């Protein structure tokens, strides 16, 4: 545990991406299995401990310290785990036994019951030093907040040998801690680990937002275009298991198994393969707006009534595997042909259809289609179109967000996905609600910087949801302001619509947003995939010729149609 704690401690202060990679790789290189595997699991967010709550930590410290001194200390430090780690009284008669290794701690916290936890946790805190205590408390409460993404940790694994981060990504979904086979492969003394899951998640390929300046370098003939549907990215996988019975799974874009929430859809699927597409609600064959889909997403329980009112559907745009064959290294056109054949053979009772290609010969033509999807093939479904996707005809299906093969061209340039960082209580009738939100986007170094503050645009029902989120995910309090969890894997993504951007020296991001409002809550999106500061920087550059029309629909935050 000491070595892992020291690693977290260094990572928390290291701002450079390469520095972080080096620190992690150095740790992985010099730490034996299975310890390094559990550390990797912690860094990639693969661990979670349900019974370790801040309330327990408060209880333990209040049994051991004077309440006035604790209050003064907490007020000074501002972070519960850190305060407790620092002021935890060392037991009488110094305990010089080595603290247990990380693997033993993970094992204990995974298997122990709620009743045993206080004594076990207190015993560990007695045996650790303050860095160890801090790391342990951060680990078990699930808020490492050290600016390390899963991708970065995998990059460090790749750095152990000759592999690339994408090599790691491709095998990752079939693996589980402590990843001994992965390390053996990465270090060049083991074979590529194979998954025995018949229906594994395959890391999704993401796109970059395209900017006006990019088009000069892009050849329209080399690209295919599709509508960008305003739903939820899913991966539907169905394949026979060892016993011959088929396994069907629906995965979110992060690989979370969401089959349970969409039994109507999962049961309808009969193909053998892995389909990448958009989950949408269709009524009478027509795609409904995201607001309708969201009503289904918000429900916890799956009821027959809901299944009837909000039938789930996949609009397919890629095929990653078919009948045991991995198609990801085929070019887009070839995969598309296979996909079209698969969808034609498997209508799946109307639950599966094909996302059509949008024909175009020049960027001007595509711009016209993007500006008015209804007149360019989307017809009555135009409301569910949020832009167009550009995919190189020869692009392989690569995990992550490679620059160049795929682009997204959203209809409203003045909208970003930002991460909620701080919430402040409102005034008047909102005085008991956290209704003023400060949100941020990611810097190149992987840190969030605040870019604006918004206090309207959401519905009353959404306000209650956000308020609940804020109260349950507070990591710091500053008077009326709460800092909420905002790591790449945990937090709330807000789609923020705004009227314009200006340079500002008053904000740390160097930007000021005009008239920002919350257009939508993106519960489905991991914070790590929110927008980056460089995207906003480029929007400033575009200000001169980009339209800046106010949106008429606050709840949606979209302009009706905006030309390019």
């Amino acid at each position, binding site marked *: 545990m000491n070595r892992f704690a020291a690693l977290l401690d*260094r990572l*928390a*202060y*290291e*701002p450079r991406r390469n*520095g972080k990679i*080096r*620190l992690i790789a*150095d740790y992985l290189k010099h730490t034996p299995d299975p310890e390094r595997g559990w550390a990797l699991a912690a860094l990639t967010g693969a661990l979670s401990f349900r019974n370790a709550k801040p309330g327990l930590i408060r209880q333990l410290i209040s049994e051991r*310290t*004077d309440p*006035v*001194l*604790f209050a*003064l*200390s907490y007020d*000074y*430090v*501002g*972070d519960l785990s*850190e*305060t407790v780690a*620092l*002021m935890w*009284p060392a037991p009488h008669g110094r305990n010089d036994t080595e603290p247990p290794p990380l693997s033993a701690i993970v094992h204990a916290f995974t298997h122990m019951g709620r009743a045993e936890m206080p004594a076990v946790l207190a015993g560990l805190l007695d045996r650790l*030093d*303050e860095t160890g205590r801090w790391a342990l408390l951060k680990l078990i409460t699930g808020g490492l907040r050290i600016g390390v993404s899963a991708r970065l940790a995998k990059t460090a694994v790749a750095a152990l040998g000759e592999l690339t981060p994408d090599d790691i990504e491709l095998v990752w979904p079939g693996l589980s801690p402590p990843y001994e086979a992965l390390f053996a492969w990465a270090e060049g003394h083991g074979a590529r680990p194979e998954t025995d899951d018949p229906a594994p998640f395959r890391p999704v390929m993401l796109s970059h937002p395209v900017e006006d300046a990019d088009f000069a370098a892009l050849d329209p003939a080399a690209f295919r275009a599709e509508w960008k549907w305003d739903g939820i990215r899913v991966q539907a996988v169905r394949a026979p298991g060892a016993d011959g019975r088929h396994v069907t799974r629906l995965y979110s874009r992060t690989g979370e198994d969401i089959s349970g929430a969409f039994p109507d859809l999962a049961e309808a699927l009969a193909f053998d393969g892995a389909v990448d597409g958009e989950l949408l609600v269709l009524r009478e064959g027509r795609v409904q707006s995201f607001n309708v889909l969201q009503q289904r997403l918000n429900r916890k329980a799956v009821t027959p009534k809901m299944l009837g009112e909000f039938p789930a559907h996949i609009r397919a745009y890629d095929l990653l595997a078919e009948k045991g064959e991995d198609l990801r290294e085929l070019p887009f056109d070839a995969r598309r042909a296979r996909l079209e054949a698969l969808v034609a053979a498997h209508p799946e009772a109307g639950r599966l259809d094909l996302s059509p290609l949008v024909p175009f010969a020049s960027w001007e033509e595509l711009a016209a289609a993007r500006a008015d999807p209804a007149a360019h093939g989307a017809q009555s479904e135009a409301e569910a179109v949020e832009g167009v996707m550009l995919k190189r005809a020869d692009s392989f299906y690569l995990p992550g967000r490679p620059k160049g093969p795929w682009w997204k061209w959203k209809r409203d340039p003045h909208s970003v996905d930002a991460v909620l960082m701080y919430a402040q209580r409102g005034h008047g009738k909102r005085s008991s609600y956290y209704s003023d939100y400060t949100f941020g986007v990611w810097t190149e170094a992987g840190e969030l910087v605040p870019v604006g503050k918004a206090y309207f645009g959401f519905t009353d029902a959404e306000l209650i949801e956000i308020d609940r989120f804020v109260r349950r995910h507070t990591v710091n309090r500053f008077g009326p302001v709460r800092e909420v969890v905002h790591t790449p894997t945990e937090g709330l993504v807000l789609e923020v619509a705004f009227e314009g951007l200006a340079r500002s020296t008053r904000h740390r991001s160097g930007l000021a947003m005009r008239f920002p409002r919350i257009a939508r809550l993106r519960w489905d999106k991991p914070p790590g995939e929110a927008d980056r500061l460089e995207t906003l920087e480029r929007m400033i550059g575009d200000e001169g010729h980009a339209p800046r029309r106010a949106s008429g629909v606050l709840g949606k935050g979209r302009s009706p149609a905006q030309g390019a």
Partner: protein
Amino acid sequence: MRPEELLHSTPQGLYSPAGDFFIDPTRPVARALVTHGHSDHARAGHGAVLATRRTLDIMAIRYGEDFAGTTQAAAYGARVEVNGVGVTFHPAGHILGSAQIALDWRGCTIVASGDYKPGADPTAEPFAPVPCHVFISEATFGLPVFRHPAPAREIARLTASLALFPERAHLVGAYALGKAQRVMALLRAAGHERPILIHGAMERLTEYYRAQGIDLGDIRPARDAPAAKRAGAVVICPPSAMTDVWSRRFPDPVTAFASGWMRIRARARQNGVELPLILSDHADWDDLQASILATGCQELWVTHGQEDALVHWARLAGLEARPLHMVGYGEEEAEGAPPEGTAPETAGPEASPPEAAP
């Protein structure tokens, strides 16, 4: 008699009505007793100054030979009388030449401890508790979250980073008087033998430490070091120089900071510190309690820092205790506190040292 007749706080600092002198006055006065050479305690322009030889030497280095009308050197443990009040200087363990000042008058003893630390430090005379009726303590780190780790452990973090990033200079922010020299001595004790580069603002003070017999090994001015020598070198500079144009001569350095504040993560991050080193010349929470109890005092007065918590503890421990709410102290540790770009209000003339030696 009330102890306040012997000593009480005033806006200028602690004042003795019986002896007509101040201790560590923040403004020029006729007669001053000075505990140590940090500029928030030792100021120029007093009529007469009584301090240890080393404190007087340090004041002369910082302010020039004519920093006071007259000076008198006090030897540790030797009692002198000032207007009938007995005055004895005792080592405080804070920096070279630092002292606690014990006053005795009509059967009452008050110890003004200045800044102090009981922990081992090869660059300062070791602290010893002085029996007294009233003990006056600072409380810079007067919260239970402040427990300074062993200095050797912190230095090991620095040497481990040097091993991991051998091509990068390691810029260590450290207060120019005391902390900087302590870091040098600790590095030598840890077996670090390479030349240590230093900022111009600490050259003369460092030279003084060496002249007083403190072995700091091969110390060189950073400005004379060729680029090749800077790679992977430890470079010690005042904290303010780390964000100054001065630091640009070191491409891609690891920025370290030696201060007790580095125990608080938010403090370290506000300052953009990548390698926080928890090294303090002040008593930590445990040290404060042990030192106060060791004096056998009945009454505790707290000058500055986290008074509320220390006073609360002392009352629980059965002592009479009260805060003095004194302002103007705590400068050298406060350097780690404010975010970059904003000078601390209490900053003295050394907050932004020029590259040239003073």
